[in-house]
């Protein structure tokens, strides 16, 4: 009895009155008959001052259309993953969340059953509630984002491929008349004469940007089978279906040797192997050439974000890999109480020009102003500081987005061409299940941390260190991972009917 009393007292101490939201589920597709619901949506980004104001505007707009309102919450980059993992573990009934390969991991969540399947045979929610979105994305892209043939989240409609190359500082190019590099540079080795010039004339600048985690290594463009920091890969040209240890390949060795040569010549920052924050070097104007993942207009984007004018040099051909497909998506929580309505919201968000741009750019006249309304060209408005999330790649459909006046007005057209040009990889939609080799994967990641930053920045001699690294990877069990991956990949190729 006393125990009970004690607990009652404790509860009264801690009790906070909260409103209980009635639970209702909606069916059908016409909004007039739908019961009124409240949705929740979690996204990642840098929190914006006017976020709540925009949220309010969104609600004003969607209420008559969907008879629903949505509470949008943005978590900062570093906290998003942990917050969402906690919510999912606790079984919170939120409705929509951002998911990707790099945060709130798509594959892991699907394996846990955290996300709602969207196109299960016999229950094809996607065709029913989001037909336009389905058409926008196209079959290739949906295939690439599916796991075992079923889609669990809606990818953002953006560039559907990637390629690698360099961005180059234009002010220095003009100063030293290096314009011919845009014609001549076809591979990493071609950079040498230009780096030399910068090294001699600009002592305060690193001619080539190479850092731990962002370096010329990416020019090899491996199609990674497991994770970024496990050297188990496919060649990115569909020529072979054999999974290899990338460190054992001749092109890796050649590349690391070149980087080493550049390091010894003083083209690379001396302590590069321990520096990860390359962006601040770019912003401080300390880098001349930087390897980057490219897409049309990447140089303009980098110019905006760093304050220096860049121009890009494409090196590798564009490919469509699983990574693009699952690089940015919105999933519906399996525990959501109104999955249909959430999907209807996403459909509206992906196809409605006003709504999508409202979330992306804010309110006209405050956060942006039109320069050319017909073409959708805009400039930052007086209150741009209070709302400019810059998350076009996350928020739905880039092809209906406005364009800043300092960007290429043909940006979206270029995107379309780029998407058409891209080579879809055979591995599109292949998701490696690492449950049998978890310990080996973890061990390989440790070896990676130990060796790769030193090699990719040229800090150590590849002739000596690559064999060492290969040896360590072998001890960590990389061969077992390759074997398991090959087995799964062969099955996958057979099942999808792609060539073996």
């Amino acid at each position: 009895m006393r125990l009970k009393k004690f607990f009652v007292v404790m509860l009264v101490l801690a009790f906070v009155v909260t409103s209980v939201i009635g639970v209702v589920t909606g069916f059908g597709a016409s909004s007039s008959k739908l019961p009124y619901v409240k949705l929740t949506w979690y996204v990642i980004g840098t929190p914006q001052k006017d976020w709540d104001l925009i949220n309010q505007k969104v609600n004003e707009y969607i209420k008559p259309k969907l008879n629903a309102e949505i509470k949008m919450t943005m978590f900062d980059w570093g906290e998003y993953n942990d917050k969402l993992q906690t919510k999912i573990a606790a079984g919170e009934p939120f409705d929509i969340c951002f998911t990707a390969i790099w945060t709130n991991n798509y594959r892991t969540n699907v394996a846990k059953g955290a996300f709602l399947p969207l196109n299960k045979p016999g229950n094809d929610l996607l065709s029913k509630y989001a037909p336009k979105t389905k058409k926008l994305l196209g079959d290739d892209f949906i295939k690439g984002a599916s796991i075992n043939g079923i889609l669990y989240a809606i990818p953002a409609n953006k560039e559907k491929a990637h390629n690698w190359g360099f961005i180059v500082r234009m002010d220095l190019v003009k100063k030293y008349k290096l314009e011919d590099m845009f014609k001549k540079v076809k591979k990493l080795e071609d950079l040498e004469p230009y780096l030399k010039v910068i090294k001699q004339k600009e002592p305060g600048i690193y001619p080539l940007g190479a850092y731990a985690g962002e370096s010329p290594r990416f020019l090899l463009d491996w199609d990674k089978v497991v994770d970024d920091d496990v050297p188990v890969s496919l060649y990115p040209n569909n020529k072979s279906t054999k999974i290899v240890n990338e460190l054992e390949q001749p092109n890796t060795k050649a590349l690391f040797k070149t980087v080493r040569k550049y390091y010894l010549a003083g083209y690379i920052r001396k302590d590069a192997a321990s520096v990860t924050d390359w962006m601040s070097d770019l912003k401080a104007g300390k880098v001349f050439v930087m390897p980057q993942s490219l897409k049309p207009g990447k140089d303009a984007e980098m110019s905006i974000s760093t304050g220096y004018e860049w121009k890009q040099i494409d090196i590798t051909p564009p490919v469509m890999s699983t990574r693009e497909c699952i690089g940015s998506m919105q999933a519906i929580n399996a525990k959501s109480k109104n999955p249909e309505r959430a999907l209807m919201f996403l459909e509206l968000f992906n196809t409605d020009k006003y709504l999508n741009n409202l979330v992306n750019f804010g309110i006209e006249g405050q956060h942006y102003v039109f320069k050319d309304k017909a073409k959708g060209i805009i400039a930052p408005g007086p209150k741009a500081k209070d709302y400019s999330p810059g998350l076009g790649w996350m928020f739905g459909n880039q092809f209906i987005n406005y364009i800043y006046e300092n960007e290429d007005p043909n940006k979206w057209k270029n995107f379309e061409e780029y998407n058409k040009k891209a080579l879809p990889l055979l591995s599109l939609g292949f998701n490696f299940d690492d449950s049998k080799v978890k310990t080996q994967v973890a061990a390989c990641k440790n070896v990676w941390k130990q060796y790769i930053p030193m090699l990719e920045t040229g800090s150590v001699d590849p002739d000596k260190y690559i064999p060492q690294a290969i040896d360590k990877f072998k001890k960590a069990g990389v061969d077992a991972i390759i074997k398991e991956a090959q087995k799964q990949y062969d099955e996958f190729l057979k099942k999808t009917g792609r060539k073996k």
Partner: protein
Amino acid sequence: MHTKSRFLQISAISEAILHIFFGIVTLACLIPLWAVISISLSDDNKIRQSGYRLWPVGFSAKSYDFVLSQGRAIWHAYGITILVTIVGTVLCVLVVSMYAYILFRKDFKYRKFFTFIGFFTMLINAGLVPWYIVCVNVLHLKDTIYALILPYVMNMWYVLIFRTYLSMSLPDSIIESAKIDGAGEFTTFFRIVVPLVKPGLATIALFAAITYWNDWWLPFMLIENEKLYNLQYMMYRVQQKIQYLAEIAGKLGASGIVPTDLPTESARMAMAVLGMGPIVLAYPFFQRYFVKGLTIGAIKG
């Protein structure tokens, strides 16, 4: 000068060695602190060029400008931190001291039971997810200021320390005589016991204040509303963000728009200095109560 007893005399050499040793330990504690302050007062571009120094390079207070002009959010978080620390500390001291007091009273019938309850939960923890579910679904703490206070109000470890302290410094006869003089339980506790055990209370208060002040974990778990973030969590977020972006820079791949509003090195340090500020001042305030060290002594469970 007071005369030393024979037992406290040590040779000059040992004394010198001890002095030097503890001098080094003290420096090891102070230098990093000094480094943080000096970086926060440096010019960022100069840091990039010359690396960290123990003396500010290119002296500038710009970083403080930046942090303080971020203005409302930071001051707001400061306010939350101070409010939570004060309220939390008071509540924590109250709950802990009362709980410890009844465990100390040998004539309390359910003493064993309550000792066991506290001890059991201290040793056997249900884990994170049940804790989260209780906080969110049972107590509805999510997104309330209570979420930052309540979870730390009761701490069995402090209770044990305090109970030991009570049994060492409080003779039973005092409570007997209070009873005879007709004092009720509450009068006895607040008018007789509390004034006698101020050093113990101060210790618990300091523990609690530091816990509350340095806490980023509760907002991390339970708060979504930016307005309720405290200072430490804001700093933690910045730190996490920097680490995270470095980690995923490659993974962002084609979507690769990396956010560009990361605070500079010196701004981060300025935040750290501002974050330390008041709690550093709390030490001297409590210092006078630490005449006698507190020990947990021999615990009987």
